[in-house]
């Protein structure tokens, strides 16, 4: 079994409304020195695959087909082998 830990963020060129809202909130709470907040998604997917190469291929397929909208989002992932 594999666990993919997937981090998804809006592409840098796209304005991040949730990040902006958090920045504003932090400012009203009196936090100075916070430069930027970006808000994205974190996904953990546990799945079967015979080996790492197959697992890599599978994560990418899942991300591109469902989990991530690559028109607006970028993702990175990290694969961990886990006990079934």
């Amino acid at each position, binding site marked *: 079994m594999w666990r993919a830990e997937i981090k998804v963020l809006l592409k840098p060129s796209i304005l991040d409304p949730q990040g902006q*809202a958090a920045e*504003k*909130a932090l*400012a*009203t*709470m009196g936090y100075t020195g916070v430069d930027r907040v970006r808000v994205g998604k974190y996904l953990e997917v546990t799945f079967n695959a015979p080996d790492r190469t197959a697992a890599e291929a599978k994560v990418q397929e899942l991300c591109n087909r469902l989990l991530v909208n690559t028109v607006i989002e970028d993702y990175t992932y990290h694969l961990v082998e886990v006990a079934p």
Partner: protein
Amino acid sequence: MRPEDWRKLGLRDDEYDRIKEALGREPNHLELGMFSVMWSEHCSYKHSKAVLKTFPTTGPRVLQGPGENAGVVEIGDGLAVCFKIESHNHPSAVEPYQGAATGAGGIIRDIFTMGARPIALLNSLRFGPLTDERVRYLFAQVVAGIAGYGNRIGIPTVGGEIYFDPCYQGNPLVNAMCVGLLKTDQLRLGKATGIGNPVILAGARTGRDGMGGASFASVELSEETQAPDIQVGDPFTEKLLLEACLELIGRGDVEGIQDLGAAGLTCAVSEMASRGGTGMEIELAKVPCREEGMTPYEIMLSESQERMLLVVAPEKEAKVHAVFKRWGLTSATIGRVTEDGMLRIRMHGAVVAEIPARSLTEDAPVYHPEAKEPTYLKSTADLPLAAIAEPADYDSVLLKLLASPNLASKEWVWRQFDYLARTSTLVGPGSDAAVIRIRGTKKGLALTADCNSRYVYLDPYEGAKIAVAEAARNIVCSGGEPLAITDGLNFGSPEKPEIYWQFRQAVAGISEACRVLETPVTGGNVSFYNEANGEAIYPTPIIGMVGLLEDATQYCTPSFKAAGDLVVLLGETYDELGGSEYLALIHGRVQGKPPALDLAKEKALHRTVLAAIRQGLVRSAHDLSEGGLAVAVAECTFGNQLGAVVELARGDLRTDSLLFGESQSRVVLSLPPEKLPALQTLAAQEKVPLRVIGRTGGDRLQIFVDGNRSIDRSVAELHTAWQEGIPCHLP
């Protein structure tokens, strides 16, 4: 069992003795748990039951009064309205987004359980002052939670109310109301009937969440209060459950049905069995669980959301499962209806609990706690008006009142709600009452929720009366005929005699108002123990009211519509500043008696206003409430940015009473001059005082008192103050 075993679960020593008596033996751990949740205040109403019996609950239209999941009133055309209000205060204090969301989810289930399609949501919210950071967080998250659930499930949130007061700082109130529509012949009840009938559990899988939520609702909040695992609302699953259940009920496939809320499966099986005079055999191994290894105790007490319990005829069983499957939901037959009145709970065949169903419900303890008039009333009752200086500048008082978050526009809130879903909203939030049409008929419903808890604090009996009268006035000003109410009674600990006195007085006040206004109580909710660190909230009996428009297009709104119309005040103004927003905001006093309310006069006012609206005499109607005449007229100018010139005669009143006093049974109307005689005839018949006080027009609001210009501001400036009252506190 040792005393600490039952005490830890919130049971008293004498209650434990009662349990032994009911069982004829010592309970085991699971049985004790089941008793503890069912005998919690939240489920058993043990401190309120006796008092609630005094409500007027019958009327020609009432199909279902209190006692079921929601009340039902007939509206003709073979249709009925089903509605109820419910609190979710403590969960919202701990996790405001999910607390509010699951509050909405819970009340929606109560409505479709009855066979009604939910068509509208309302809410009633109380927080501490917005100047506090934690309050701002709670407020924003509660609003987001209501939106997150209501918007996703596709039920419009069309109204509500919000107040801010220090008494709610540590214990906010989140009450949600849902209104549904059903054909009278599709009314379903939460009864287990038909010996041998299968019992089906459907919807979400059962997890370990919300264990002990009912008990958590039944203690005061303090630093040490142990919150149960938070439930996360799943509006998507609820939407599927709603459609599946309505499909089954519509086809006549359901004998009895009940949602799972507080006390989860324990509550559903015991209530259904005891209402049906039956028992149930349940096999817990058949319950679809979210996690492995859940114990019988966890399964019976879990408060996982979005679940329903159904009793169906054996020949329908397979079909019922097929419908749930088609909607993508799990369902399982977990037991049968039996005739011996016992709940027999098994795990893999072995009996793990065996309790007479009634002992958990009807035979729960009933208490008649001591009541004592609160001592604070001695110091608040007197309001020496002479000691209150009249302000020099009424303009700035009006601006301050309009900007007070209690009176200011709530648009920041309701803009986040999808109030247009179902394409039936004729009047959305921001008016006196919401109006929704009923497709396929000419009819419409007017809906509102109201309570001025400061009044109730200063005089629980009169204050509660006023809450009912104000709700009815809002319905009437919108063109509806008040039909019935649901009540959300939020109080401190009933074990304190002064709180219990407030509670009894409030119930008596509501009862009197409902009798005179002919709006029976069809159901409601009691939430006690609303205290933080020993301090109780103001007694807050929220009145949710439903009104009927035979012709939905004959609704009315507060905004002035045309320049040159007459502005008319119905009702009498007195030197009544007690409990007013003006007194609290400008003079820093929560003091005096609330304004007097004569219910017969109130009723006469309603008849007058309704007749005027139905005869098409008036172009706008707005009731006077917090902020009095000046604030009400200002609000009338906002909708179409149409000003007015108002001329008042002071008589022997104080100017501040005249402008900002909150005397009851008053309404401001606007109408074309030629309609005045007809209106005067109506008012004269009902002996309702009528004064022409001004004319609409221009872009300023000018109020003259005895010829002196007391208020003179542009509508735009007043409107901005009112619009910004809430957003200016938020990031």
